[in-house]
């Protein structure tokens, strides 16, 4: 248990890098998307400007205490996920606070921010917020099924839930990555990731014009900036999670950036291609194909040795 200041500062530095990488990645992806549409897209530095602008706004409205704390919860969720997962494989400095738990902790900690955000958004008393949340939760529940199956398949395969052990097992060449050693689990996991990332086609949660962007509909200025900070972090962290699980983790920052970009890109890429799905359809979809693949993956992992 290392609670020293140095550890803290290293983690803070890691967080800072991740935050900026997340922002950069998001503008890059937007530009990629714009290019697909034949546009130029936002400048690369747009996310930073937006963040600065949001902090520069002079109106702070509060619907209640939970409304205020909601974004805090959300960011704690994102930061916590970051802290509970090692950044760089094999590096003591960049291991964060991953000693306090492993994959299971992370899976459940995902929901921590969600619940906090949900409560905050609810406290804004806008029905649109709660409509968005209800959709998000339903979709999340369905996504968790293939996700869990994938995780279990991996846990069976590697006989561990520890990130380090899972990454360690994938060292020594591309072919040792889970995506190759356990393709079915990886497919299930990656399909689940599409839902977890909430990109199109699974973004009805934030349908902009139907329920003016859903849960954060009442959030503005500094609150929104906190949420945006979180989304920058969490996209990277989520990508890193899948990277660690399926793509061998990262032993250098370069690999980290390349791989998270790649993983994140997959979800954006799918989003560019497919239109939005209704919630009941996405629930059905997740409980159908990814789940089927996941079950096969588990069975294969368990009984086909």
């Amino acid at each position, binding site marked *: 248990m290392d609670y020293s200041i140095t550890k803290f500062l290293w983690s803070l530095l890691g967080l800072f890098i991740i935050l900026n990488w997340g922002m950069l990645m998001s503008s890059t992806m937007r530009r990629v998307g714009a290019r697909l549409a034949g546009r130029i897209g936002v400048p690369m530095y747009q996310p930073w400007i937006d963040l600065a602008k949001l902090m520069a706004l002079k109106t702070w*409205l509060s619907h209640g205490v939970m409304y205020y704390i909601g974004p805090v919860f959300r960011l704690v969720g994102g930061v916590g996920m970051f802290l509970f997962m090692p950044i760089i494989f094999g590096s003591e400095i960049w291991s964060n606070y991953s000693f306090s738990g492993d994959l299971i902790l992370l899976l459940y900690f995902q929901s921590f921010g969600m619940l906090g955000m949900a409560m905050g958004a609810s406290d804004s*008393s806008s029905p649109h917020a709660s409509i968005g949340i*209800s959709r998000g939760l339903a979709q999340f529940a369905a996504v968790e099924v293939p996700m869990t199956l994938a995780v279990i398949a991996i846990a069976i395969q590697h006989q561990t839930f520890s990130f380090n052990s899972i990454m360690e097992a994938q060292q020594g060449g591309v072919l040792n990555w889970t995506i190759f050693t356990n393709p079915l689990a990886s497919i299930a996991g990656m399909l689940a990731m599409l839902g977890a990332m909430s990109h199109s086609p699974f973004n009805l949660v934030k349908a902009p014009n139907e329920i003016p962007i859903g849960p954060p*509909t009442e959030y503005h200025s*500094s609150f929104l900036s906190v949420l945006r900070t979180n989304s920058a972090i969490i996209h990277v962290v989520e990508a890193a999670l899948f990277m660690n699980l399926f793509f061998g983790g990262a032993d250098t920052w370069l690999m980290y950036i390349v791989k998270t970009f790649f993983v994140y890109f997959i979800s954006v890429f799918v989003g560019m291609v497919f239109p939005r799905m209704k919630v009941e359809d996405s629930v059905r979809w997740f409980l159908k194909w990814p789940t089927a693949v996941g079950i096969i993956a588990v069975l294969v992992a368990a009984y086909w040795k």
Partner: protein
Amino acid sequence: MVGPIYIIALALGLAFFLGFFGKSAKTLSVYLMLAGLAAMTCISGTWLSAFIDGSVSTQEIYTAGFKPPYSINLRMGLEEAAFTFIINLIGLLGGTYLFQTLKKAGNAAMSVFIILIMSLNVIVMTRDLFNLFVFVEIGSIATAGLILLDKESKALQAGLKYMIATGVISGLLLIGIIFAYSFVGNLNIDAIIGANLAGTTAGMVAAFLIVVVLVLELKPFPANGWGLDVYEAANPGVGALVSAAIGTASLFVLHKVLPMAGESFYPYIVAVGVITFVGSNLVGTQQKNANRLLGYSSIGQLGLVVAVIGLEPVLGTSFKFIAFALIINHVLAKAGLFWISGIIRKANISEWSVLRTKPALLISFLIFIFALIGFPPFPSFFGKYQLIMNLISSDNIGTAAFILIGSFAEGIYMFRWVGDALKNEVAEDATESLDCGKLNKVLPVLLMAVAVVAAGYLSIPFVDGAYSTYFIPLAFIMFIGLIDSFLPAVVKNVVSIAGMAYFTYVMYPIIEGDLMRSIFFGIFMIGGILTLIPGFAKKGKREGFYPAALLMYAGLATIITADNTFGFFFGWELMTAGSYFLIIRGKRSKAHAYSYMLFSVAGAYLILFGFGFAYQAIGSSLLEGLGEIKLLPTLAYTALAIGFMTKTASLGLHIWLPGAHGEAESDVSPMVSAVLLKAGVFGLMLLFLNMGDNGETILYVLGWVGAFTALMGNLSATFQEDAKRMLAYSSIGQLGYILFAISMMTTLGWLAGFTYVLNHFMFKSILFMVVGGIVVATGTHDLYRMGGLIKKMPLAFIAVMVAMITMAGLPPLSGFAGKWLFYNAVILKGWYIQGVIVFFAGTIAFMYAYKMLHSIFFGQLKDNHRNLKELSPAILIPAYILIAGIMYFSVFPQDVLQPINELLVSLNLGDTLTWAADGNATTVLSNWNGNAVMIIIVTTFALVLLYTMLITGKTKKLEQFNIAYSAERPFRPETTHYSHNMFAGLNKAIGFLVAPGITSFWNNVSTMVMDFAGMVRRIYSGNGQVYAGQIIVYIIVFYFIALGK
């Protein structure tokens, strides 16, 4: 000591003497009659006490001065003394009860009455077959006469049918007797028994005729239409006599005469008894007429005793106790019920709610009903327990099963009746017909009620494992019951809490050192005290609440402290009864309490059934026997598991729970949900620990059941609009987790199970207390009618939020401990797919957690809730105590889990989890440091909060309609609150999973049973001739089955 012959002389002399009065001096006559009955009671009573003292031995009374077999002799032994005493007592009280009726009817009726009682005495005492016949006939004719006390046409019809039926069977009896005489040359029963009458074909026929007729006197199903009509048409006072006194005498006669037919005949008597017990009770389920229903029940109960009589060779030394316990129970309870019926004077059971205006009668009524069903502490409980134990020990499993089925069928209508009495509206003019002004009507009822309790107490020494200490809490409850109507709820609450605390203090040493028991004991007792605290918020007297609550907790404590199956079952039934009374207190709880009770009773019987095998294994009732079952272990363990699962509301057996918990009073719900359900878990744990290798398959199946229960419970909760029902379904889901966890039978699984048990106890207590308080405050159960209450009840919100986070299993709160253990356990056990279902259920839990938080506390505040205040401290204090518990568990999980881990290792569940000194828990798969997680999250939270406050300026507080509403403004809070059908999308996608298939399954089952019962009871066509024909058919069928070979 006055000779028993004086009973006859006195009664007859008196009866003849009353003839002198002609039609005059009726009052004096009644007093004379009562004095006579009292004297008869005294005579038999002195004999009984002498026999109990052991100061006398069995007496033979010779008439005419000649020794038997040359003259008629009577016998007075312990049994005879007891039976005559019962009969005379019922006669005396019945006579007292019928005082006015008899007075009105005249001296002739009184003579008939006293002769009836006298004849029953002789029936019991005589040892001469023909003499028996004569006095049976006297009894029949006297009964036929008494049926007419009210001189109604219906009574006349019933009387005629009765006469025809008894006429036919007595003729056949006579044939049997005379041929028995012809074969043996003797009429003395002992001599005939000694002569092996059944040795020849013809002798067997004679014996058959004698026995079958005496069986028919007991009105066996289905040849008993004539008897039922009597019960329905006669004055209830007479019904009491027929059921209690005549029934008792007839049973004794059967017992006396049965050996004539030889050993081989006993099984048929068992069959007759069981068929009667099951059939009569089953048909009774369709009956709405109170007296006729009592008739069905009487016949059923007598059938049970007939079966017991047939089981005499099997039951051995326990026979006398079992038979006597069942008889005395039947006599006291049934007489009491008939008398109440006479006071109530309502034919339809749904009108019996008028009882509520007379608490003493109501309590007596409840005592009688629960005694009849076989609840503790009444004698039939002891009797049935011992009966089932002995039956299974002697490999009579089918008989035991049928007896339990019959008991259950009896429960079906009895509890419907109780529900009607407790919950139906009291019609305004209902009390007019009440006839309880006279002490002589009420007093016998109350005496019976006291007697049946006393008889229960006296049963203790006869049952293996029964201790008088079990009655200590009951005495306290009776005390509370006595002060119930006088004191305000606050005082009673204080007394109850003090009593429970003291009881806990006293009982704790018994289980000290047994960690598993200590945990459950803690949950039950501390939980009990905590859940009683919200009662301080209630005004008024709350009559009936405290005895019921304490009854439940006494039962729970007994379950834990018991070291044998009897004590366990005793506690189990107490708990069931107590919780039933608690649940039925809810406004709309009638149907739900009913289904709760039916499931509970069925479950309890399954448990009893299973315990029988344990008893069989070691020959005593110690709980160790559970591990030794060799006879049909799968069946036994399955029965036990299903029995316990009725209480944990596992899939398929859950349909009672949502209504029962949802509609219960606000402070009852936490008791029955957070605390009570754990009894089932305790039972299952106890069972699993003892199953050994036999249980593999069961555990595997239960694992699946648990997983689907969790999914179904949580999914249903998600689609609920009723706040308390949502919590109730959530309980089903949580109990599904627990079932799944402990079915794994590994250290991790059990540790997860214990974590869930503790967590569920804490958070569900909080939720039900607080939400219950909110439901009361807002005046609605519907979530969508609430909203925005966070500003009114911030403390309540925090409590619910903490509870919900715990429930959802989010780190850093203790709920995550369960999830973490779960993952490890699932992988190590290899139950992957089941595990995934459970995890899916877990994410669904998240949804209803949100729905509840949002619908109650967020969104739009409704207009009529503007003046609401924070909940009463009586609710918040226990809730926050529990929150402190959750917090402690969350920060220092190792403090709680490590000892349990050690316990589980010592139970040979495997040693797969290690604890580091800093709180890091490690398995081969994973590690988790709850302490560290807490520190990191709290620190991060503080920093992020600081950051947010730093970048946020002075906030402007908004009101509920200050929302960006597409440039419009909301109209009404009601239309702006998104709650109803919140997860419509999910419902469209997977809502079909929770279509009420189980409910319709059980509905179909009950409809089928009811239809069947309705069809069967068509045989009671009402035609006396047909009834006589049925008797003949019965004899023929019986003959060809028993002797046709």
